[in-house]
């Protein structure tokens, strides 16, 4: 197998080759680095590439394997992380000039756990500024969609999705507050998982709204995400909301098929006026495929979900405004025009809306829990439309445009499950007439990531989308 081909393999295939000692971690890392050097100028997926440190880590991993010591399935496998996650000794910019010189003195817990599992950090990935996108003029380059370089990747975990899609690296970590793992996963044609609130530590994550923030994996397949989740999930005393619930056997859930699985299609999201007809058709086809694959499918209703975006904004935006207020006061012009305007707006939301929004969020959670009593998972589109052209002007010219494009439009199918905390994943479900990917969102009960991964993997096995990749 050529070095170039190694970079195209997923985590599962690399695990086999590494543990049979047919390839070395150093060979795999060099293949990825070569591909990054070749394609990153076009894609701007990476902000920082840690070449020498990655090669040293790869050689250590090879040495351990040579002595018969494996740390697990991720041993020697390259990964990269959103530049919102601390990495010890490696600058962590949060996609912003505000933090361009910030070098953390410790790893985020999720990074530390992947390293402890033997995975090799290649570098830091581009993102929408402060995780509060979109960004008109990203300070570290414009992230481009590998399926069409004139289109956005979505975000805010832009590079986390595009790097996997373009096979620069087989595994990445992103962070999701309103959809920031799932949205770019859908628009770039990869799998992205937001775990249950409290399943994965937020320690070292430069987030926006702590009650909604979560780190999670992106990869080319559900099984690769399962391997990553097993490494990063679990109690962390540095993040008090992490749960003591035992970490499930996620890899064991892969390959169980759809027999006996009950799936609820969320009516309000499938009927949304914002949903592009061709994306609706692709999701409907996905539901048909799931049914033919052995699942029992029914429609479910979550009435409050139509108000989820307003609930989300009432809670999340003031959190972000409070977090970044010192920078709005002292360095407003070091913040890109779009997140700056969004933060200024968020600063003016009256605090009196927050308690009502929190109560409605609890009611929304109860409705989702109720829907999940009769079924094992819910499904919906991940995004209302495929990747849009990269914006060249940031002007908003009406209140209607302000809501649909700047606020609710992007994340209206994903943010409900940040409010409620349920695990949610996006898996590719086909391509539009313009050959752009679309995503199917799968949502599970609390701490039932295994069910979500099982359904996503089963869907992948009966459809051709997992094996499609862009010619960059």
């Amino acid at each position, binding site marked *: 197998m050529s070095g170039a081909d190694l970079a195209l393999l997923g985590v599962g295939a690399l695990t086999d080759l590494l543990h049979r000692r047919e390839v070395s971690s150093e060979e795999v890392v060099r293949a990825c680095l070569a591909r990054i050097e070749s394609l990153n100028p076009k894609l701007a997926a990476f902000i920082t590439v840690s070449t020498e440190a990655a090669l040293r880590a790869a050689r250590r991993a090879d040495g351990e394997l040579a002595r018969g010591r494996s740390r697990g399935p991720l041993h020697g496998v390259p990964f990269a992380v959103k530049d919102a996650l601390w990495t010890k000794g490696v600058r962590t910019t949060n996609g912003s000039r505000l933090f361009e010189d910030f070098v953390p003195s410790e790893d985020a817990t999720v990074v530390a756990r992947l390293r402890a599992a033997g995975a090799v950090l290649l570098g830091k990935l581009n993102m929408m500024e402060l995780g509060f996108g979109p960004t008109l003029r990203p300070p570290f380059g414009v992230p481009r969609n590998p399926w069409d370089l004139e289109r956005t990747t979505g975000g805010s975990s832009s590079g986390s999705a595009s790097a996997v899609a373009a096979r620069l690296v087989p595994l990445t970590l992103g962070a999701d507050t309103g959809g920031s793992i799932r949205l770019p996963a859908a628009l770039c044609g990869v799998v992205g998982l937001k775990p249950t609130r409290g399943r994965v530590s937020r320690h070292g994550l430069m987030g926006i709204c702590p009650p909604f923030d979560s780190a999670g994996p992106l990869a080319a397949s559900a099984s690769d995400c399962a391997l990553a989740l097993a490494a990063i999930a679990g109690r962390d005393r540095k993040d008090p909301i992490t749960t003591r619930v035992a970490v499930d056997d996620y890899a064991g859930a892969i390959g169980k098929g759809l027999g006996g699985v009950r799936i609820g299609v969320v009516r309000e999201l499938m009927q949304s006026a914002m949903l592009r007809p061709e994306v609706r058709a692709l999701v409907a086809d996905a539901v048909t495929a799931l049914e033919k694959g052995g699942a029992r499918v029914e429609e479910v209703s979550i009435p409050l979900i139509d108000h989820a975006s*307003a609930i989300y904004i009432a809670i999340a935006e003031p959190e972000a405004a409070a977090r970044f207020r010192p920078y709005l*006061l002292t360095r407003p012009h070091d913040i890109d025009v779009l997140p700056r305007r969004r933060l200024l707006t968020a600063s003016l939301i009256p605090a009196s809306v927050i308690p009502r929004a929190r109560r409605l969020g609890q009611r929304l959670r109860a409705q989702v829990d109720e829907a999940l009593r009769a079924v094992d998972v819910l499904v919906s589109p991940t995004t209302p439309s495929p990747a849009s052209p990269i914006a060249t002007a940031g002007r*908003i010219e009406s*209140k*209607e445009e*302000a*809501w649909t494009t700047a606020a609710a439009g992007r994340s209206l199918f994903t943010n409900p499950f940040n409010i409620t905390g349920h695990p949610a994943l996006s898996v590719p479900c086909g391509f539009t007439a313009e050959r752009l990917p679309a995503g199917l969102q799968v949502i599970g009960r609390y701490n039932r990531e295994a069910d979500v991964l099982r359904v996503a993997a089963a869907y992948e096995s009966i459809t051709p989308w997992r094996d499609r990749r862009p010619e960059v």
Partner: protein
Amino acid sequence: MADLAPEDVRRMAAAIGLSIADDDLEDVTFRLGATLERLAALDRLEPRDPVPPAILEPDGA
């Protein structure tokens, strides 16, 4: 709900110590107006409590 004027928004921001540049003002005005309209709709989703809260006198009467 009455539409916000840009100068309303500028004064609101100034009241909390923020200044809004001229280039940002119209955009922020549209965004804030849209947001407040959608948030007002949340008021109708909670039932009004028909029983007003009891008010205790300081001496417990």
